[in-house]
């Protein structure tokens, strides 16, 4: 026992033994408990008819659909909340983060206050505030807030007109896609050329022209082949158009406003981490403040910003599970809530739910690590 190597092996074997013993104990208990409670085991339940409705479905789903399909409905609802939440949180977070370094005293104070207040209030409270406090206070369908007779806001959600493309509208969409791809390549080429020759290239105007201008011209030439399905009040509720349900809106708002407070701090510390000498050197070379920020400060700050930003994106995605508190049909609410209550198969359902979040975590961190390694500072 005096040999550290032998001691290490003994300790490890003991630990392993304890872990295995706990695992076996849990397993045998679970099997006998499930048998006694007459709960089926295995994943066979995924093919059984669900028999409950879901208010927001991105894929086709009826009460006759299976539990397996309900799982995917919940998963997609989680992903769409995360998607919009991340975009909104990034925009607000960067604005507030840059604002809290502004030379303008008033803007700086407002941004600092935003960060302090938002970060120190629990997310669940944010969510309740938007859902029960604000969106419930909006009038009912008959007294909807009306914007230009096409967008209606009431306590059932926000109703937008749904665009319906006519002949040739597909061409416009294809042009937009081509425009996006082309701008991507132009941006790469311009960057390379700038690095080699120092010649700047107006990438923004070219991209705008390709993504918006050209498709718009074709769209007008074709005689505007686009009609809208306007929402209209029929009976007690609105019909037609696209609806964003209040649960979705409050979840996205709460998640992004809360997470933006954290992102703002990451952005601020990232920009502050760039040595002042970099700015001074850029000014000494005669570079204007705008390009200095864009070409000197931000690229260096991004190295510091990206890793914590990744964690914030992951947190936001995981926090979208708070949806269960306001019954937005996300993965946890639909699958670990309703389906679990109906089938009682806690082990399988929680295993599947947790695996989804683990997989999302792993995919995000792989993508972000790849991006991080690309932009990381190469020293020596």
């Amino acid at each position: 026992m005096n040999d550290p190597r032998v001691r290490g092996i003994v300790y490890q074997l003991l630990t392993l033994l304890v872990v295995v013993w706990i695992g076996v104990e849990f397993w045998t208990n679970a099997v006998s408990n499930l048998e006694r409670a007459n709960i089926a085991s295995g994943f066979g339940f995924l093919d059984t008819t669900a028999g409950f409705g879901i208010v927001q479905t991105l894929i086709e789903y009826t009460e006759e659909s299976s539990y397996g399909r309900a799982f995917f409905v919940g998963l997609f609802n989680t992903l769409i909340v995360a998607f919009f939440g991340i975009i909104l949180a990034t925009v607000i977070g960067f604005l507030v983060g840059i604002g809290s370094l502004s030379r303008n005293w008033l803007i700086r104070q407002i941004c600092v206050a935003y960060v302090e207040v938002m970060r120190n209030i629990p997310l669940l409270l944010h969510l309740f505030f938007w859902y029960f406090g604000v969106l419930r206070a909006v009038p009912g369908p008959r007294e909807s807030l009306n914007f230009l007779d096409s967008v209606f806001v009431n306590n059932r959600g926000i109703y937008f007109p749904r665009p319906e493309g006519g002949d040739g509208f597909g061409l416009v969409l294809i042009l937009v896609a081509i425009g996006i791809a082309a701008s991507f390549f132009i941006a790469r080429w311009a960057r390379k050329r700038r690095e080699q020759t120092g010649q700047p290239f107006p990438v923004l105007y070219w991209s705008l022209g390709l993504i918006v201008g050209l498709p718009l011209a074709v769209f007008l030439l074709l005689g505007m082949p686009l009609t809208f399905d306007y929402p209209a009040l029929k009976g007690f509720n609105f019909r037609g158009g696209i609806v964003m349900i209040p649960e979705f809106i409050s979840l996205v708002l709460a998640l992004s406003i809360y997470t933006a407070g954290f992102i703002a701090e990451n952005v601020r510390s990232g920009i502050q981490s760039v040595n002042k000498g970099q700015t001074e050197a850029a000014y000494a070379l005669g570079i204007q403040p705008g390009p200095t920020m864009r070409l000197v400060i931000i690229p260096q700050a991004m190295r510091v910003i990206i890793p914590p930003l990744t964690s914030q994106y992951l947190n936001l995605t995981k926090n979208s599970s708070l949806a269960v508190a306001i019954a937005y049909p996300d993965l946890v609410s639909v699958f670990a809530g309703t389906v679990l209550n109906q089938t009682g198969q806690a082990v399988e359902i929680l295993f599947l739910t947790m695996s989804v979040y683990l997989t999302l975590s792993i995919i995000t961190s792989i993508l972000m690590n790849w991006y991080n390694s690309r932009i990381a500072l190469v020293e020596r």
Partner: protein
Amino acid sequence: MQAFVRTETKPALPPPGRTKGVIAWMQANLFSSVSNTLLTLLGAYLLYLIVPSVLDWALFSATFTGDGREACLRDGAGACWPFIDAKMDQFIYGRYPLEERWRVDWTFFLGVAGLIPMLIPSVPYKLWNAIYLLVPYPVIAFLLLTGGTFGLVEVETSFWGGMLVTLVVAITGIVASLPLGILLALGRRSEMPIIRMLCIGFIEIWRGVPLITVLFMASVMLPLFLPEGVTFDKLLRCLVAVALFSSAYMAEVVRGGLQAVPRGQYEGAQALGLNYWKMMVFVILPQALKTVIPGIVNSFIALFKDTTLVLIIGLFDFLGIIQLNFTDPEWSTPQTAITGYVFAAMIYFVICSGMSQYSRYMERRLDTGHRND
């Protein structure tokens, strides 16, 4: 030779512009350029949108007295503060029996009595203080709150609620997660492969899943894993879940600190002949923990905010009990809910920002000048 000497005096320069005073400050900070002025106007407009309406709701149009919903039912009424006043006891104790509430008070005061000298750096006997807080105090608190011994009536945890539950969950989580997290962090950096893998697996799994699923697991799955007849209290299961969850986050914070300790410190300790635990306890951990105080406090704050999630599995914490009281018909007004939420937000804000202020103060105090800046 011609001398170039000025014969008449040069006219005096005008006095410099204001460099001090309100106007000069405003010129420099608010109106230094066109874009700056526009930003100032934008900021002022934002404040104009928010501040007057908030003040009007919370103070000028608010109701401050009354003992029922009638007082808050006026047209254009703002916040309904009497609701908070009337329900304050519930918010603090939940459904804890009226005649037993002195036990909660005593638990609270004994805790504060131990905590305040701990937080003030100049008070001596820190070690004994810490021992009191970590060993006898939890036992006393447990015996006082649950009862059932020493002639105290037993109070089941299903009667606990409000701030009591919030503090119990948060403090247990904090106290349990710090040592567990340190152990996990040491395990993650251990040279023994099996222990390292187990620790990495544990940390990554807890960090990869949302707290809600962990709480669901504690409430529906954990009972399945226990032998027949063994039941755990719901609150206790939730405490276990919260402690495991936050210890994984704590482990990562501590790992950061361990990585920041220079190699020479390890080598120095080994050269003195210290064994692993002595090296860690006396040399490495004090340095590592000091550098990550902000991170530790951040995870305390996160944990405190996350305690609100226990309401989803049916425990009535502070937020849960406030929400429960909205259903009281005696106080049902359009303003009740929003008043309750704003009150809860203020309480959480005060506690969380208090913690972060204290951590900044500690950081400055413990700063031994080892930093570069």
